[in-house]
């Protein structure tokens, strides 16, 4: 196992190099840089050139790539031009706001998906099952930004039950419980949308996996022993049905820390996705590149985790 993990980690290196070259090449295709994007009229040509020299923007792309990649290899992502802070620090400041939404929607969607998936497998072809199937398709097809807008329109503007956007009420100095309630109200809709989007495919996953398990002999044995139906389904069947789903856990990793760019924009949520979107607009290369690589690393590690988890959960799988 240890050997397997080490080999996989080593295999990541060429992939990461490929990604970094690709991402850097794409971003250096962008005409203009941070200085032109800022476009302040008071700046003279000399001042601009001076600033470019400071930021290292005057060097040829290939040289810039090696400086950047070299720094990154030792864990230095550079300084964000816009925030005047190390990229890692900016990520650390905003990523937790995104994490809150992603984490809760993850938990809710898993709970909902397990229950509806199991029940619709148990009562296959029933009315309930058909409704679930239809809802699943609806959830899988939702354009997140449109549903977000629709919910804001209904619940925030028309009914006035929830705030329109942001993370806290502007000017609010509430602490403790008051702060908690404030954030809760603001996060309700984004979490709802994110949960809706991810529940669809998860439910489907659990349903098929449960359908496979339920037809096996040991389930018949469990019933023949006279076990209660609830025990059969939730203890005997569900455990095995959950097994393949463990791999999904790893894939959730980038979603947890990656931020939901579009949703955060719609809900004006101060998460990492919004900061990232802004960094593209103002040509804050160090942040833009650094965060893209951060996401890629998360994806690769997530894949590794899901493979390892699968091997750990299912002794029939040998990792080599």
């Amino acid at each position, binding site marked *: 196992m240890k050997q397997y993990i080490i080999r996989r980690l080593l295999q990541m290196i060429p*992939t990461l190099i490929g990604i970094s070259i690709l991402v850097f090449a794409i971003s250096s295709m*962008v*005409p203009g840089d941070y200085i032109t994007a800022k476009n302040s009229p008071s700046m003279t040509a000399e001042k601009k050139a001076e600033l470019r020299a400071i930021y290292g923007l005057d060097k040829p792309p290939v040289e810039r790539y090696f400086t950047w990649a070299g720094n990154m290899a030792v864990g230095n992502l550079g300084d964000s031009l816009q925030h005047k802070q190390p990229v890692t620090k900016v990520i650390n400041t905003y990523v937790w706001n995104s994490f809150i939404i992603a984490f809760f929607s993850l938990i809710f969607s898993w709970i909902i998906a397990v229950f509806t998936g199991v029940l619709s497998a148990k009562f296959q072809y029933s009315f309930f099952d058909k409704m679930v*199937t239809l809802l699943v398709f*609806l959830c899988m097809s939702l354009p997140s930004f*449109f549903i977000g807008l629709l919910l804001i*329109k209904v619940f925030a503007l028309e009914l006035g039950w929830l705030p329109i956007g942001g993370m806290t009420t502007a000017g609010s100095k509430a602490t403790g419980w008051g702060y908690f309630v404030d954030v809760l109200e603001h996060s309700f809709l984004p979490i709802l949308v994110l949960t809706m989007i991810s529940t669809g495919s998860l439910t489907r996953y659990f349903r098929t996996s449960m359908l496979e398990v339920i037809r096996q002999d040991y389930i018949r044995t469990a019933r023949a022993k006279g076990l209660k139906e609830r025990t059969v389904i939730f203890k005997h069947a569900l455990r095995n049905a959950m097994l393949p789903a463990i791999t999904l856990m790893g894939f959730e990793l980038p979603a947890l820390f990656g931020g939901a760019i*579009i949703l955060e924009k719609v809900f004006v949520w101060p998460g990492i996705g919004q900061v990232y979107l802004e960094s*593209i607009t103002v040509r804050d290369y160090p942040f833009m590149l650094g965060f893209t690589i951060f996401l890629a690393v998360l994806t690769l590690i997530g894949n590794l985790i899901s493979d390892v988890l699968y091997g750990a959960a299912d002794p029939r799988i040998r990792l080599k």
Partner: protein
Amino acid sequence: MSLEAAPLDMKTQVPAKQPDSPWRIAIRRFTRNRLAVIGLLILVVMVLFCVVGPWFSPYDLLEYDVKNKKNLAPNAEHWLGTDKLGRDTLLRLMLAGRISLLVGLVATAISILIGATLGALAGFYRRFADTIIMRIADVFMALPTLPILIIMGAILSDLKVEPKHRVYFLMLILGVLGWTTIARLVRGQILTLREQEFMQATEALGLRDRRKIFRHLMPNTIPIIIVTATLGVAGAIIAESALSFLGIGVVPPTPSWGNMITSANSLIDFRRRPWLWIPPGMCILITVVAINLIGDGLRDALDPKMKK
């Protein structure tokens, strides 16, 4: 009596003598899936609405009437109202649908072309070609798609690409970024197919590699390609609309469902003029649901083993 019975008997015997072709079986399985058929009907209606609909519209997008017709609410003349330039929203909705559907279709076609070819090459030649192609696929798979799309969109904006041409670039970008899924599937299939007996026959016949791959191996992967392509179109439509909503996909004056929703960014339009942004959103939703239903029906019909 006997005269009538005879042809009936023959009819019942025919299927036994001549087994149905796999395609006919697939079609029968598909039509038995009620949700999939409903999806297909909805999609056909939607396509007709967008493609044929504009011809029945009495309005023209180039006819501005900012003075008299600005921001009208839905009424008998303008069923979905008008926008801030006095253009008919219904007409824009139909024209936007053409663009959105076209972007989805072409982007997927590009993905399939690249993905199926590379996947087939990797599966057929194995060894070196396989390693190289699948490594590249790994890189593409670990790329965060949406951020890359946004960066590419920003590049298009910076290069001042004309809105007319921008649509083509968008198709290309979406297509190129999406080839890995199909490549992996096709490669997997070809790896098993190439070991089968009919491939030994092609070997014995001395066929060229090109012929082996494109005439004998690829046709066997068509079911997988069809299913993935269908679901891919749905994904591409969503991606396009999201990008256009962010203002870096299809940009005005070319209408697309995504960029029509951008009018929700202005608080007044968002609040008081829902006819500007709710219909395009519903169109996206309905189209994508329909395509997903069809894709699922096709999966059941073409390859029951694939169901996961």
